[in-house]
């Protein structure tokens, strides 16, 4: 009963988000802000799958984003794939990187976070290596000028956001979500409930990396010109983690609200003084992780108001 209701509300919210982002460009012409907002929302939902449900904090989440951007770009440049297929290749590329990183899930807590961060940095150094200039253009960046199409890629981004939301809805209101939460609570007790812990958490990890890769792919298409430093920037990981922590982990709307509030804040006040934002968002991570680990939505939950 509770689950059916949750799924219906969740899908309703997804529809609302879709409609909003279709109409917003008509009344608000800063579409690049809207695109980035959708991008952060999708990344926040993707990170939510692994962090919110299984408790693994992936500080190197941006690695999947960058891997997605480069996989898509290379598919366009070398294989001449149409952009839409290339975005999918971005998702698959990040997913494969995710599979390579699966052993990291054996670590716990801060060890996992640090190892994942190091792994994403390693990816950056591989991609940005001048010796790979023939393939990745090294540090000089990628140009996809001839497929530049901010209109279509805007809607593809919206579809990816919707996909990430639907994925989270079905995790949140299913037995699978319960299994992931069990793993987050206690891996030993979870396995004694019969859960194949390595398998279930790897599936969540794969979904999470796939969503980041799709987002990276469509980002590559949308901006058409980018550098390794842009798509592997640690700032992206930090932002996404802050947004999810702020809004509320393990929920559908928490990551959306966190992204909306904090990314708008950053965009309208912070962009001129980014260094202060990095500092204050770093502090926010600490404050939320320590004192409000379930985000602002948990304040509602405590009063008995269930939020999808």
């Amino acid at each position, binding site marked *: 009963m509770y689950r059916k209701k949750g799924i219906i509300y969740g899908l309703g919210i997804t529809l609302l988000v879709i409609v909003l982002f279709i109409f917003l460009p008509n009344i608000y012409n800063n579409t690049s802000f809207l695109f980035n907002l959708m991008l952060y929302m999708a990344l926040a939902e993707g990170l939510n799958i692994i962090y919110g449900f299984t408790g693994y904090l992936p500080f190197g989440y941006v690695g999947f984003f960058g891997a997605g951007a480069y996989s898509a770009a290379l598919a366009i440049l070398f294989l001449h794939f149409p952009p839409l297929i290339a975005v999918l290749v971005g998702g698959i590329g990040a997913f494969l990187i995710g599979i390579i990183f699966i052993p990291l899930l054996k670590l716990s807590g801060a060890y996992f976070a640090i190892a994942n961060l190091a792994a994403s940095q390693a990816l950056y150094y591989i991609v940005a290596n001048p010796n790979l200039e023939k393939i990745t253009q090294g540090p000089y960046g990628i140009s996809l000028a001839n497929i530049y199409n901010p209109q279509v890629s805007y809607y593809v981004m919206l579809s990816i956001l919707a996909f990430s939301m639907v994925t989270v809805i079905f995790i949140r209101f299913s*037995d699978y979500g*319960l*299994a992931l*939460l*069990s793993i*987050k*609570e*206690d891996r*030993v*007790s*979870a*396995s*004694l*409930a*019969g*859960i*194949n*812990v390595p398998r279930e958490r790897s599936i969540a990890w794969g979904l999470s990396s796939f969503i980041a890769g799709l987002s990276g792919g469509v980002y590559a298409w949308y901006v058409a010109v980018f550098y390794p430093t842009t798509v592997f920037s640690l700032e992206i990981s930090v932002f996404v983690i802050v947004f999810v922590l702020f809004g509320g982990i393990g929920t559908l709307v928490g990551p959306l609200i966190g992204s909306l509030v904090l990314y708008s804040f950053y965009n309208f006040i912070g962009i001129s003084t980014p260094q202060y934002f990095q500092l204050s968002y770093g502090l926010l991570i600490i404050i939320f992780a320590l004192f409000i680990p379930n985000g602002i939505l948990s304040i509602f939950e405590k009063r008995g108001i269930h939020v999808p």
Partner: protein
Amino acid sequence: MSRNENGAILKIEDLIKKFGNFRALDGVSLEVDKGKIIGLAGPNGSGKTTLINVVSGVYKSNDGRVIFNGEEITNIDSHKIVHKGINRTFQIPKPLLGLTVEENIRVAAVYGAKDKGKIEERIEYSLSTIGLVDLRFKKAESLTSTQQKLLDLGRALATNPKLLLVDEIAAGLTQKELKMIADMLLGLKEKGVTLMVVEHLMGFLDMITDEVVIMNAGKEIFRGSIREASNNEEVIRVFLGG
């Protein structure tokens, strides 16, 4: 009468578990007969919990074998052991604290039993057996320690175990609660579940079984009736002591 009229459901052979150079299990061998309750006692640190941890796959042994229903299951993963029909409770209860009572049991009913049918029935059965129906929507973290032990038991029951390893469920209970749990365990035996019950309180073991194994320093030192145990010199020296 032979002990093995129904055969052994669990055979433990020369099991060794080391922590560093220390042998918490030092070649222990024992058998658990199908359909019975066997008590397991012994002084603190004699390896009772470690034995349960190895049999349930939480720890890997260094040597020896565990055979369940004729099949070797030594050192396989916990979830596979659960699917084969073994489950356990914890001396220090380990429910999924952030989940509700019902969710704790649901996840075990869905993932823990081989037979995927009758999930709702199994949830209700477990909830009513442990007597936590009224608390089903409460978070496990808000339960008392006794209720959390019961929830551990409920989580185990939801997986349809054939063999249940119970680790000191009676510690710290009132006389009335002891009686209730004893009846509950006897009820499970009636339903065909085999039980190995680790307990310090011989009085409690006396309520549910006649047969006990006494461990000391990672080995079995005695097997027989509680009566015989209380007359056995070695058991008196290391465990019942004065």
